């Protein structure tokens, strides 16, 4: 109990700004989970870009949002089958070394930096999960 008291008495930042920061994060995850079609569209585009450089096992694909401690992140687990020798479609060559280690690639984290602009879901975006209204 003691550590609770000391932690509390240390003059933390005013609770109002704590509330504002927590709300910013939780509303982001609420809004995304509320607009599945926007999330699916984004996921689709990500895959099509990656597929230009890598053969991926779409079945094992896992893309989801996570907010941990004070950051809101988009995490993508993309199982790679092989490297495309020449990226099709897109002109510029991918600088990829041939000697790929056999074990799976490290998890790719296209991070949404906390102070970056809020992700694609703008608060005013016409999010209409419930079209019956």
């Amino acid at each position, binding site marked *: 109990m003691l550590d*609770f008291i000391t932690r509390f008495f240390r003059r933390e930042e005013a*609770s109002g700004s704590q*509330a504002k920061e927590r709300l910013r994060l939780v509303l982001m*995850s609420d809004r995304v*989970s509320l607009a599945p079609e926007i999330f699916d569209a984004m996921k689709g585009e990500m895959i099509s870009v990656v597929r230009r450089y890598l053969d991926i096992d779409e079945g094992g694909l896992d893309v989801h949002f996570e*907010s941990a401690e004070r950051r809101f992140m988009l995490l993508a687990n993309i199982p790679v089958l092989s490297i495309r020798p020449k990226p099709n479609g897109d002109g510029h060559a991918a600088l990829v070394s041939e000697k790929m280690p056999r074990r799976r690639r490290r998890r790719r984290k296209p991070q949404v930096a906390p102070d970056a602009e809020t992700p694609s879901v703008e608060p005013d975006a016409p999010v209409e999960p419930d079209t019956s209204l």
Partner: protein
Amino acid sequence: MTDINREEMTVEEALSLSNQEAPAETAREAIARPDKKVSLGRTIVVTSGKGGVGKTTTTANLGSGLAEAGKNVVVVDADVGLRNLDVTLGLENRVRKHLLDVIEEKCSLDEALVRDRARRTLFLLPAAQDREKDDVPQDKMAALVRTLAERFDFVLIDSPAGIEQGFRNAVVGAKEAIIVTTPEVSAVRDADRIIGLLPPDVESRLIVNRVRPALVKKGTMMSVSDVVDILRLELIGVVPDEKDIIIAANRGTPVIDIPGSETGAAFRRIVQRLLGESIPIPTFQAADGFLTRLKMTLGLQRPDTRGG
């Protein structure tokens, strides 16, 4: 439901347990494992009819207090679509799965349960945020509450406001109810309505929240005894109206952790009464005696008409 097969832990032991970072699985946690327990835990729905009277705050604080007293507690957010129990406990960024995932067998119960940051024996089962309340079939909810009662000593269900499907789902599994009201006419009227809707075999008790002694004295607010006279329920607690609640909500910590908070102390007394201790309910007299007048003159306390 006396827990005969479990020795009563003293508060210190419970605290030491809850402060250890990663204790070896203690006897208590072993019991929480899904092997069938002999006695079912107590299932209590926290409800009110009117919104904004303090249901979620009450659920979070009673849950924390009971866990601190060494009980295995799960608090269930039945407010599908308007999830708030997670932010009240500051667990919003640990939520992965939710109640509906468990009911639709998309994940196991353990995957959805979120362990509290401060108390090891307190767990949260969060509500779905992206779905409607009508999605939760009543019989599946009852079965889930029963499963929880087999694993936990206390199952506190935070009911949504109103009297529609959300409320019916929250009530269906509960053997006991705590009705939360404030001493305002419409809140008491809606509480009365809810009591009329509860199945007759549910044991209901009353908490009168947000009591402002100064206003009761001025006759602006109903007195606690007025409320009890109309609702005719056993009173289990009276909670004063203090700013601490807003500060605690901003921080995402239960108000019982705010030292010196009258509100926190009131919730602790209710926890003890729930555990069977008979503690007299203090009547909050408006301290308009010397002390208050002194504070007024020193400008420490706002004059009555709330200056901007």
